[in-house]
C-alpha cells in the first residue's frame, strides 16, 4: 500500500519546553483512517500540530507523499495538500458562510475552479446552501460542523488531520461528524484523527495507534485495539506498581 505520510523518529515540543514527542514513528496509507488514542499527556494532539507545521520538528523527518515537510511553514504544508481541523472549531464566526468558504479556498488562484469547488461542497452539505448569507457563528452546532468539513474539503486535500471531532458535541452531532469522516475517506482522502472517545474513534477507523508519554506504544487494526491487554495498563496504571 502506498504511504501518504511517514513520521520517522520525530522529536518535537513547544517553545523552549521539554520534548513532547520523543521519537514518534507513524505511517499512514492512502485512503486509510487512523485514530490515535492514549491517556492525557500522551502527545496525541502534538503529533497533529507537528505535521500541520504549528510546531517545529526538533529532529526526525515528516514525509508527505515522499517529500520532507518537517520544516515547512503551516501555510506551505496546507498547499502541499493537508487540511487541519484543530480542536477549537476552525471557522470565522463573524463572517458569512459564503465568506468562510471563499476563505477556505483562498489558495486556489483560479476563480472558476474555486466557484466549482464551492458548488461541489454545497452539494455535499446542502444545508449550507440555505445559509450562505448567514454569519457562521449564529448557526447551530451541527450546521457549524458541516461548514467546518466543507471548508476542510474545498481544497481537495490528500490528507486531513482532525483533532477530537467529538469534543463538546451532542451525541447525534458526533455521529454526523464520523459519517462525514468516513465519507471523505471513501472519496480518496487519508485521515489521521485524535480522539478521547476511543470507542467512537476506532469504530470509524481502519487502524488504531496507541500513544503514551510521547511515543507510539503499539498499533493494530482498529477492531482489535480494545482487546489488547496493554490498554488497561496505559489508562489505569500498571498493576504491579505497588
Amino acid at each position, binding site marked *: 500500500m502506498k504511504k501518504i505520510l511517514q513520521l520517522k523518529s520525530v522529536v518535537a515540543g513547544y517553545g523552549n*519546553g521539554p520534548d513532547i514527542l520523543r521519537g514518534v514513528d507513524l505511517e499512514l496509507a492512502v485512503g486509510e483512517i487512523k485514530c490515535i488514542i492514549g*491517556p492525557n499527556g500522551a502527545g496525541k494532539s502534538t503529533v497533529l500540530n507537528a505535521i500541520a507545521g504549528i510546531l517545529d520538528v526538533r529532529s526526525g523527518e515528516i514525509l508527505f507523499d515522499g517529500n520532507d515537510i518537517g520544516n515547512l511553514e503551516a501555510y506551505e504544508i496546507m498547499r502541499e495538500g493537508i487540511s487541519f481541523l484543530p480542536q477549537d472549531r476552525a471557522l470565522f464566526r463573524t463572517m458569512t458562510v459564503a465568506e468562510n468558504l471563499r476563505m477556505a479556498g483562498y489558495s486556489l488562484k483560479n476563480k472558476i475552479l474555486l466557484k466549482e469547488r464551492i458548488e461541489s461542497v454545497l452539494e455535499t452539505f446542502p444545508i449550507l446552501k440555505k445559509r450562505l448569507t448567514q454569519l457562521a457563528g449564529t448557526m447551530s452546532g451541527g450546521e457549524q460542523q458541516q461548514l467546518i468539513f466543507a471548508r476542510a474539503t474545498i481544497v481537495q486535500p490528500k490528507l486531513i488531520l482532525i483533532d477530537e471531532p467529538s469534543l463538546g458535541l451532542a451525541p447525534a452531532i458526533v455521529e454526523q461528524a464520523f459519517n462525514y469522516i468516513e465519507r471523505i475517506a471513501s472519496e480518496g482522502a487519508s485521515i489521521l484523527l485524535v480522539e*478521547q*472517545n476511543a470507542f467512537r474513534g476506532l469504530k470509524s477507523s481502519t487502524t488504531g495507534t496507541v500513544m503514551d508519554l510521547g511515543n507510539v506504544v503499539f498499533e493494530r487494526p482498529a477492531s482489535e485495539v480494545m482487546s489488547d491487554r496493554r490498554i488497561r495498563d496505559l489508562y*489505569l*496504571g*500498571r*498493576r504491579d*506498581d*505497588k
Partner: protein
Amino acid sequence: MLSIENVTKRFGGIIAVDSCSFSVKEGQIVSLIGPNGAGKSTLFNCVSNIVTADEGQIIFENTRLDKTPTHKIAKLGIGRSFQLTRVLDELSVTENLVLHTASGFGLNLFLPSVTKEDMVRAKDLMDFLGIYHMRDSAMNELSYGQKKLLDLGSVLMSDPKLILLDEPAAGVNPRLLETILEKILSLKSQGKTILLVEHNMELVMGISDHVVVMAAGSVLKQGTPTEIQADDKVLSAYLGKVEK
C-alpha cells in the same frame, strides 16, 4: 474529616456534577480521577467554594464549606493548589512564600505583616522542598519544576490540615514526579490529609489510600487503587463509554 454529600452543580442546562457523594478520612490520601469533562475540577472548586454547589452539602469538621466564603475556608485549615502554578514574578522565592501566611497582611499599616514565625516556617518549607538555595532568586531563575515545588510550599505556609492539590503532576518530568510523590507521602506521614485531582496514574495508584472515579458528573466507582485498576467500568469510561 471532609464529607461531600449529594453535591450537584449546574452551569445553565449542563449538569457538571450530578449528586456526588464521598468522604475523606483524616490522614488519608484520596485521589479524584476520571476522563476529561467528568466534573472533577468543578467538584474540587465546590470544596473550596470558588463555585458554589447548587444542591447537597460539603462538610469539613462540622462546618458547611458550601456556606463559607472562600477566604474563610483557608482559615479553617484547608489549603489548595491550582493546576497552573500561581507565583508572583516580581517577588523572590521567600517573598512568594510569606505572602501566604495564615496571619494575613495589611491588618495594621504600622506593624510588620510578616512575623518572625512566618520567616521560620518559610525557611523550613524551603528546606523540606529542597529549594532553600533558591531563596533569594527571582521567578525567572526558577525552572518549571522549582515553581511547582514553590507552589506546593505556598499551600503549606498556612499549615493546613486538609490539602487540596489540583493536578500536582501536570507537565512534570519523571524525576520531579518522583520528588513530588515523595513530598506528598511525607506530608501524609506528618498527619496531613490530602485530596488530589490527577491524571497521572502512576502517582494516583502509587500513593492513594482511596480513589474516587468520576464520569459524566457522577461517582462511577470508589475503592482502593487495586480495585479501581481491575474495574472494567472504569476502563470503559476512560475509553469513552460511560455505563451507569
